[in-house]
């Protein structure tokens, strides 16, 4: 049996760059560098570990990385391939500009189905939109179990198991494949691509699909048909400069005086 893993990765603007809005109130991608979302590196890492475990047991495993995004999003796929994924799918179409979570999930669901899968692995949230809902939506659309927000994950005999650390409790979860998983940044440090990996990635296949390849009409996605609309965006006013003192033995007391002045004590 061969385990087919699809990892959903997003190409995002660098969070340490100066992110802002374009005139149509979508994310302006022109002035800021993009990269593979750091939180999706954890998904790639877990896919690699699951595949390695599988191969140790003399089974086969194949990892496809999938992204929906503009031309440059290929960079994110290359990075995932150089980490060790086997092949990539890039869904790219001008009509996708401005698509929101529900639209993106439709495209991802169709692309995952077309690729063929036993296990879909996502990151916990994208670092730009930070909604963290796509994996659940994907499971809903695909009609398979969601095993999400895992800080530990393993696959054995057609079952995926994982640990979910919630606000009030830690849960151990289990579901039969096929399933959609998402992993958190607690799941284990992602590996760096090796030189060999980077060279090998150049030869790995990247398939490009557009909306018609997925039987999706332009009207089902894009900014015009989004389910949500941003009416305004304002830069948060810079915080007014505060008082900064150097501790010369009385720093704690000075701070206490400030807090008392603000009625915190």
């Amino acid at each position, binding site marked *: 049996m061969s385990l087919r893993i699809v990892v959903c990765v997003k190409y995002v603007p660098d969070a340490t760059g100066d992110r802002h809005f374009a005139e149509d109130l979508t994310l302006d991608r022109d002035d800021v560098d993009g990269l593979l979302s750091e939180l999706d590196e954890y998904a790639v890492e877990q896919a690699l570990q699951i595949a390695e475990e599988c191969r140790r047991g003399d089974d086969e495993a194949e990892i496809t990385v999938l992204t929906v995004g503009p031309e440059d999003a290929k960079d994110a796929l290359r990075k995932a391939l150089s980490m060790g994924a086997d092949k990539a799918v890039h869904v790219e179409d001008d009509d996708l500009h401005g698509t929101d979570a529900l639209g993106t999930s439709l495209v991802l669901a169709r692309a995952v189905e077309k690729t063929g899968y036993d296990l879909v692995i996502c990151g916990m949230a994208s670092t730009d939109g930070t909604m963290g809902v796509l994996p659940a939506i994907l499971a809903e659309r695909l009609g398979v179990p969601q095993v999400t927000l895992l800080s530990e994950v393993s696959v054995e005999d057609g079952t995926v198991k994982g640990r979910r650390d919630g606000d009030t409790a830690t849960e151990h979860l289990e*579901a039969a494949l096929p399933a959609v998983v998402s992993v958190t940044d607690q799941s284990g440090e992602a590996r760096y691509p090796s030189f060999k990996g980077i060279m090998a990635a150049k030869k790995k296949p990247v398939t490009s699909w557009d909306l018609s390849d997925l039987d999706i009409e332009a009207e089902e996605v894009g900014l015009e048909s989004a389910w949500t609309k941003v009416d305004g965006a304002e830069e948060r006013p810079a915080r007014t400069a505060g008082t900064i003192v150097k501790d010369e033995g009385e720093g704690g007391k000075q701070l206490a005086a400030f807090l008392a002045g603000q009625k915190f004590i």
Partner: protein
Amino acid sequence: MAEVLVYVDHVDGAVRKPTLELLTLARRIGEPVAVALGAGAADTAATAAEYGAVRVLTADAPEFADYLVVPKVDALQAAYQAVNPAAVLFPSSAEGKEIAARLAVRIGSGIITDAVDLEQGAEGPVATQSVFAAAYTTKSRITKGTPVITVKPNSAAPEAAPAAGAAEALEVSFSEQATGTKVVSRAARESTGRPDLTEAAIVVSGGRGVGGAENFPVVEALADSLGAAVGASRAAVDAGWYPHTNQVGQTGKTVSPQLYIAAGISGAIQHRAGMQTSKTIVAVNKDAEAPIFDLVDYGVVGDLFEVVPQLTEEVKTRKG
């Protein structure tokens, strides 16, 4: 007046504070109808009514505890069909967001997550969101279907507004997907006796500068003198010095307290994303160039092991 569904987050019948905030915000849009599920659901009715619920729909079945998320989606869908609401609101917890998202797909509606404010606009509810690590504030609305919105904790002060709400049984039939993901075991998190991080009025956080798990009591002592919650940067959490549940930032909790005190934290963008909207910000850091000082109302450049214990003593003295 139109009815608004409000998902009640509770632990064995004890309603968590973000739900009270949600009921308060819901009243700006319509009459809140609370939906409470699982063990103790009916016990939430009195509190929900006190904060304005005109009805409280409750359901309890083993499925809610034994399987992940989907049974609750089935219940919310049943409530949606029974009430035909003007909007559906959830607390922005991990589970709240996932239920909301799946419900949105099922009922063909748009979804907005992590709103920090909500008001009624000409074309339905308008949500305020804080984006790009809180560098921008946006106003958005849902243009298709019934608005489904999740709201962050600390977005409003809970205001009581007693209403009639009494527990009514909600009829739920579970979908085929409901039993897809089994919860094999569940261990409740032990309470530290300190206020909940996302609900606290004051948060004291420690970072890499704290230098080790054995030094975190310095941060805890200050927190306890102020009645505050304890937070940590990811560097401190990754080093194993403090539990991940206390992490503040992009992949941890978002906090928006009256007072945030950062000790030995540099103020990386991902950390700021989780605390930037705090009302008053204070930092202790020995590096005068640390970016956290760009945010502060009051900053002390110095060694936290000198400054923090002195502050703790002074707080205790002043409080007598």
